[in-house]
């Protein structure tokens, strides 16, 4: 009845670590050279969600309705249901003669049918710069706070291991966003912060067990202890990932277009976070030569 896992994870560390380093590097290269596809929250600009209740209107009609108004770089795409469009343009600031009201009137008269402006967002250049800064600050602070918490609760080797795992998760998630040119906006910052929390959560569970086993089997090598601990917590790791993914999958499929990017980032993050707590956070303890002795010594010092 009772399943006891006994996989040899440690033997795979070398190959998975190489894969992780490779993926992290690729992600870094993508993020620095291809860049992230910032939404209007961080870049400034205007977004309009439009619904047209007419079969005759095509995406190119929508595009031409918005052209010739000096709106700057224009991007039109279908958005969920048929007849729904998402229009984004560069123009950030409006004045008396060119504003959302005149754009609306122009578009409706050019399309020749009524259009429902379901959502309008406009972010000015000052605000977008502030939002980007506060987003970066929030993520850095969250990382700092995690580091501090783990440092207080565990030894420094664990701190380093878990923070490496978090960086790994966040970088690869953003790398995938860069690769697929998915939009990075305020909700992605929320997703990244949640991934940081989740990845940490997953790592902590395994670390807790490693530390417990270190004192229980003080003569065993860190490799054996890591392997035992990962296997002992494997069932929990899988079940929690599954239920979290079930919830996120439900948001992704049914939660509407607005939550798509957010839930996708979270799904990627949870998958990578689960992987990294086994294959990134644990090997680092081995490389840092953590043993019962080193832990005991540290504790004496404190």
């Amino acid at each position, binding site marked *: *009845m009772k399943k*006891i896992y006994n996989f040899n994870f440690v033997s795979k560390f070398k190959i998975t670590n190489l894969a992780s380093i490779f993926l992290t590097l690729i992600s870094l290269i993508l993020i620095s050279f291809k860049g992230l596809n910032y939404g209007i929250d961080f870049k400034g600009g205007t977004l309009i*969600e439009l619904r047209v209740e007419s079969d005759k209107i095509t995406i190119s009609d929508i595009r031409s309705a918005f052209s010739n108004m000096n709106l700057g770089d224009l991007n039109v795409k279908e958005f969920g249901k048929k007849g729904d469009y998402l229009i984004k343009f560069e123009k950030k*600031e409006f004045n*008396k003669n060119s*504003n*959302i009201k005149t754009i609306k009137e122009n578009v409706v008269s050019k399309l020749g049918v009524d259009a*429902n*402006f*379901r*959502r*309008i*967002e*406009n972010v*000015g250049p*000052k*605000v977008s710069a502030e*939002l980007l800064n*506060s*987003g970066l*600050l*929030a993520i850095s602070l*969250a990382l700092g*706070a*995690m580091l501090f*918490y783990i440092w207080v*609760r565990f030894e420094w080797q664990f701190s380093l291991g878990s923070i490496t795992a978090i960086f790994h998760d966040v970088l690869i998630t953003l790398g995938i966003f860069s690769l697929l040119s998915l939009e990075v906006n*305020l*909700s992605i*910052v*929320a997703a990244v*912060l*949640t991934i940081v*929390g989740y990845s*940490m*959560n*997953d790592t*902590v*569970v395994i670390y*807790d*067990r490693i530390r417990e086993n270190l004192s229980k089997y003080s003569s065993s090598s860190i490799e054996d202890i890591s392997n035992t601990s990962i296997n002992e*917590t494997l*069932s*929990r790791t899988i*079940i929690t990932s599954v*239920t*979290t993914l*079930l*919830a*996120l*999958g*439900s*948001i992704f499929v*049914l*939660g*509407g277009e*607005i*939550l798509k990017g957010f*839930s996708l980032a*979270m799904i990627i993050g949870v998958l990578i976070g689960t992987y990294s707590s086994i294959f990134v956070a644990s090997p680092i303890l081995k490389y840092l030569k953590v043993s019962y002795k080193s832990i005991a010594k540290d504790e004496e010092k404190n």
Partner: protein
Amino acid sequence: MLNFSKIKIILIYFSFIVISLFCYSNFSDSKNIFLKKKINLGLDLQGGSYLLLEVDSTPLQNRQIQSKVIPLKKKLIEKKITYTNFKIKNNKIIFDISQDDKEKFDNFFTDKNNDINTFLDKYRSFELEYNLVNNQIIIGLSKNGIINLNTSAVDQSIEIVRKRIDETGTKEPSIIKRGSNRILVELPGVKDPERIKELLGKTAQLSFRLVTDNKTEFGNEFFTLTDTQEKISVSKRIILTGDNLIDANPKYDNINQEPIVAFTLNRLGSQRFGQATSKNIGKRIAIILDNEAISAPVIRDSITGGQGTISGNFTFQTATDLALLLRSGALPAPLSVVEERTVGPDLGQDSIDAGVLSLLIGFILVIVFMIIKYRFFGLIANISLISNLLMLIGFLTLLEATLTLPGIAGIILTVGMAVDANVLIFERIKEELNKNIGNNIQAFDLGFKRSVITILDANITTLIASIILFIFGSGPVKGFAVTLSIGLITTLFSAYFISRHLTSIIVLKNKEKKLLI
């Protein structure tokens, strides 16, 4: 860990029931102060407009610097400081002084009791600061001087913004100060914020001044009339400003049926207007609104009753808007929209529907999965999950929190992650059961004890992340942080108390029987 005293049991379920009962008040219309509490829907769910306005204080800085010129010159003469090349450029006062006067100047300018460079107690700094380049003195507003100007402009503007929005009939607007130079306006249910944006975009500074024949720039300004395109020269002397108005209403002119604005002046205004009009019969009076001359009628008779009208190529709508602006008063500085987010009501409803559906499906998926995985104990985990959700919603109601679309996502995520605590406990018990077959109580006891620390560690990390998000997040994203943080707390409560208690009942009843988790 399995022994619960009666008091503890009562306390646990009492607090659970009290908090969960708040869910109900969302569906009741009672006026009772407890049942009145409701979860607020964010603008992204109920539809509405979020506007972040910024005060453009450049004209204010300009005015403030201008106002210093005459007193400063007087003071310099009084202190026997000789100045040359006095000028104003880019909101800075610039002049030259001799080497010997530098110290004298510094002494009076940085004296806390001088009446030109005000010392701002609030900021512990002077309003103005000066730079000395060779023998040239450059005086400008200090950083705190600008903040002080912005703050007072925002404070004055907020009241006027509220009046203007109230006049449009918007229900329950929220108008709050943000930082030193911004105002955040939230307008629930507003479908088209364009009119409000237009109304807020005008300072509505009105003045009545005489049209002169004098074509020199000294004491005069030139305008082009917006109705007739005629070029006129207008005296800088102001007879009346909008501050003297107590009421304004749109009307139709009796003679040509054109829309006009009829106004009523206060006592001081009536006196001044009466004097000016009786002295200048036959002359023209220009009506200047936000640096545009809207009309310049001829004064036919003295107007002493404090009543008058403004004409100027209005439609009835523009006359109505102008009357509204004049009634609510002039803004000290122009406001510009630096961020806008507007959601139509139908999109809001679609979001609610999608959010609720995905919550329901996510919930069912997790529940089914737990039953398949843990059978009987899955049921306990599910009861704890349901009570968790009830408490989460109860808490949100109690705090009258704002629920946003990302907030709903936070609730769904809580559902997914909440079972983690139960899983940690069950897995640990499983291990203990494997070690001590036949001794249920000990195995469960150890299982709970050992998993508690891990559960705390694991949840605190997520809690830290979501609190940081709450502090830094803006708008809808903040709602995510709210539901996730409260969700973590209710998760800890339901796992640590409710599922532990339910498990203890089962275990204590089946001391000898083999229990399979």
